[in-house]
Structures are given as C-alpha cells and as structure tokens.
C-alpha cells in the first residue's frame, strides 16, 4: 500500500475529515507553533460540543470558546501568555456567560504525564506533584496511590497519579514535513510528539511541504514520524500570532491587543466576523494582514552547522 495515499490535503478537508462534533481535540504547541489556523477552520466549520485539551489555553482557545465550539476544557494554564486575560474564558467560567464551561484544571507536568500515559497505553502516570494541593479535590482525575515498592527506609511511599488522555484527534503546527507526514520541528518542541501519539488521529499543519530527500538528510530532526500522521496540511503562517522559529516572529502586539478585544464580547465577535468567518481560509487571512505587516515579523538567518551522518565506504 502506498503510505502517502491521500495524506496531503487542504485545511478544510482535514478538519472536515478528522474533527467531529463532540470530539476530544488536542491542540498543542507551547507558545511556539500554536495551531491557530486549524482552530480558525474548526470555527468556520461550526464544530460543537468539543472537549479541548491544551496545556496553555490562550488566544486560539478563547476564540473557539467565543465561537461556541467548546463545552469542556482540559488545561494547566488559562491566560493570555504574560499579556493579560482571556475575556471569553473568564466570562464562561466566572458568569456562565453565555453558557457554562466544564473545566479540568491540572499543572503543566500533570498534563505532560497525561499525554505520556495516553501515548504509551498506560492506565496512569505517577508524578511528584499535588501533595497538599486543592487541585485533586476539583479535578478528580488526580489521585493518590501507594507505591508497590518500599522506600529506602522501608516505608510505603504515597504518590499522585494522573489518568491518560487519548484525544480523538491531535492537531499540531510544524515547520516542515514530507508528503508522508514525517514532521520536522526545531526550536521549542514542547509536548507535540506525545500529544500526537496519544491521539487516535493526527493532523500536522506545516509552513513548508518538503521533498523526502530534505527530511532524510536530517532524520534526527523528525519529531513525528509518518506512521503517526493521518493528514498533512500546508498552511504558511498558520501559527500566527505565535511564531515559527526561523520563519516569522511572534506578534506580541496582537497578544497585548487581545486582552482588550476579548474583554468586550461584542468586539470579540466582530473580530471573529472579520478575521475568521469573513475569510474563506487562512490564505485570505494572511493576504488581508498584508505584506507590510508580515515584513514586521520577518526574521533573519541563523543557520546551524551541518552534521555528518556518515556514509559507508
């Protein structure tokens, strides 16, 4: 069977095929390579009743909340980076306005361990967190067990564990992939690989689709191999307002602006109408921002030294 068959597709096709109403959807990217364009397409297609799993729930999650796509959120940080608040998320949690939001609150390593358990088909994952915290009382997935092995002093050690997370689909953004889905990421690599392996299906959105030879010239840079990927979507600048190392910089001004935009529900919905519902796809969003705007986020070159993989003589 041809392993490349039908993997490369448009964002519209990928979201239509892999994101369904009621699904658990993981969107990962730790401040770097946030799959914003994928979130926008989920909004355009009007998905409902999603459980969103994301360590740092930030702008794209606030937008999906405002669009009415999400009923449950699993996260370890719900803020607009260091730039302020998420207006819609706060209205949903503080006032159930316009509807309640079910929230499962973890810490970063708790989320990481949930992905590790999910990706490795383990029933739970232990971590040295949560002792004495109020988090287990509100997120009952966090439980305490006795270690089956005696501690050095012979005593029985108690340890907290978290349950696996197995999303229906994980969507990540990456610098590049080949047509089979071998995905290369550099810079901050976060939890993307584990989030992909934890999921039933995985969609990889890339800045560049490259030849097999480019990938195979540097196999260590492949973070997610083809066998874990179901769809490859070419979507340049699809991580805006976050950044793609070596491609474009973070749009810090937009992060700062979002606190004010999201604070006013009318203004937030006007923003969605203009920039998400009012664009056919991400290419139109990119065009509408304009070349002058993108020039402001351009980055210069800082090339790595090539390594020698060697070749049998």
């Amino acid at each position, binding site marked *: 069977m041809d392993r490349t068959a039908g993997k490369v597709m448009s964002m519209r096709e990928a979201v239509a095929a892999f994101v369904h109403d009621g699904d658990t959807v993981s969107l990962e990217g730790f401040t770097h390579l946030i799959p914003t364009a994928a979130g926008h397409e989920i909004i355009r297609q009007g998905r409902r009743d999603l459980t969103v799993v994301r360590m740092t729930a930030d702008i794209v999650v606030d937008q999906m909340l405002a669009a009415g796509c999400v009923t449950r959120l699993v996260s370890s940080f*719900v803020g607009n980076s*260091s730039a302020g608040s998420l207006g819609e998320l706060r209205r949903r949690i503080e006032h159930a306005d316009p509807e309640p939001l079910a929230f499962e609150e973890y*810490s970063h390593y708790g989320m990481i361990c949930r992905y590790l358990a999910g990706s490795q088909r383990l029933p739970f994952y232990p971590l040295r967190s949560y002792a*004495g915290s*109020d988090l287990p009382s509100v997120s009952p997935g966090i439980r305490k067990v006795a270690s089956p092995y005696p501690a050095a002093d012979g005593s029985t*050690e*108690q340890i907290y564990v978290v349950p696996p997370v197995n999303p229906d689909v994980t969507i990540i953004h990456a610098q590049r992939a080949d047509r089979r889905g071998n995905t290369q990421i550099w810079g901050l*690599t976060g939890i993307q690989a584990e989030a992909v392996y934890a999921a039933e299906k995985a969609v990889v959105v890339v800045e560049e689709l490259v030849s097999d030879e480019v990938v195979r010239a540097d196999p260590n840079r492949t973070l997610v191999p083809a066998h874990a990927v179901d769809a490859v979507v070419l979507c340049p600048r699809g991580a805006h307002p976050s*950044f793609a190392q070596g491609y474009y910089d973070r749009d810090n001004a937009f992060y700062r602006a979002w606190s004010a935009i999201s604070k006013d529900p009318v203004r937030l919905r006007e923003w969605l109408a203009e920039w998400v519902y009012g664009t056919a796809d991400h290419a139109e969003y990119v065009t509408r921002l304009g070349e002058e705007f993108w020039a402001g986020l351009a980055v210069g070159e800082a090339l790595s030294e090539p390594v020698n993989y060697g070749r049998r003589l």
Partner: protein
Amino acid sequence: MSEERTKTTGAVTSSELLSVVAARELAGRRTVFAGIGLPTLAAELAHLTVAPEIEVVYESGVCGAHPSHLPETIADAVLITGAEAVLSMPALFGCVLQGGHIDVGFLGAAQIDRWGSLNTSVIGEWASPAVRLPGSGGAVEVMANAREVFVVMRRHTPRSFAGELDFCTTPGPDRALADGIRPFGAGVTRVITELGVLARDGVGDELRLVAVHPGVTVEQVRAATGWELKVADAVTTVEPPTDAELRLLRDDVDPHRVYLR
C-alpha cells in the same frame, strides 16, 4: 556597596527595587528556574554581579540562553537562537525539574499564606469564582522539586498575604507532609515585596519578617499581612539599590524598558 548609594536623580521604581533585592538573594546559587518578567531581570542582574555562574532554565525548555535581545516571553525566539540546549517538555519537567537539578525556582502568586503555599487559580470559590486566574502552569512542579523557592509579590496587602488561601494551587512542603508525602525541597524561603523581605527555612517554619525597605516600619508590614506575622529578632533595613546595580539593570539588562517601567 554602601559608598555607591543611589542618587536622587534616578528615582528607583518598584520593579527595579524588587529585581535588585531578588538578584542579591541569588548569590551562590547555580541553577534558577525562572519565568519572564522580574525573575528574568533578577537572574540577569545576578549573573552580572553576585552569581556569575548562574544558569537560567526557562519553563519553555531553554537552558543556557544567550539572547540577543531581552526576551518578552518565556518562549521568545531570541531565547532559542544561540542557546546551549532546548529540551522537550517531558525532559524539562521530568528530568531537569523533578530530577532535582534546580536550586531556586521563582514564582509569583495572587495569594500566599504563612507557610508559603500559593494560590494562582481563583479569587472566590473554585466552581464559580469572582476572578478566574491562569492556574498553576508549572508552579506546582517548581514548588515540589526545586531546592528552594523565591516569591516576588508586587502587592503586599492582607488580601494577598492571606490568613487562609481561597484555593491552594501550589502547596508548600508543610501541606505536602500533612498529605502523607515527604517533600523534596524547602519550599518558599524568600518573599520579596515592596515593603520588605520575609524568610522561612523549611518544613515547620513560618514566614517571618527579616528586612524592611528604608522608610517602612515593622508595624506597616504587620498591618499589611493577613495573619499575625512573625518578626525576626533583628529586622534589618534593605540596602537601597546602588548606582552600579541600577546602571547595570537600566543600561545592560533592560535598556529598552521591556519590564522596567
């Protein structure tokens, strides 16, 4: 340093004051886990003064950063280019932090209690809060796994220095012990505020006032604290930032005033 006292020409801002005091406390420390903002300034200033060997580990996974510009976020691209290492989340949180390689973790909070436990989740009831705050991030892990924790609190009020936390996101070691789990580190050992410095040694120890800024009285700090604050036998006065420290902070660490405002 006393011969280089600040001249009145450059009034010291609270950000500068907190950064300078935090930097001095980093003397002799080797690895610091820091977020962006004042901890970054403190660590950078410490690197130029009292702790030349200090290594900052960022929550995004960057170790040994050599940024060309002051980073605006923990994941700023300038932290990655030229860094000594960039780690995945499981390696950073699992091996570096939980593995016990961090000397000092810097944390902030909306509320802190006398044992150094922190609330960054909610003001009010968790299920229907008056204010939903960002939550833990990696704070639970920093507290559980760093040898000690420094907390920088911009506001010192009875509401933020709370007799009882609205919610305990990040427990100190005393709460861990009460939950039947032996803590690894000392928990919060320093709290740096606009009024002074509180200190704590480890399990079983309450925060106590050890130093006040010039012009601040012990009574003022007591009144601003939401519990009966213990006071050290000899409360010292914090040495004001020196010209040399301020020059480094303003000219070398944050010349574009990303954080110093």
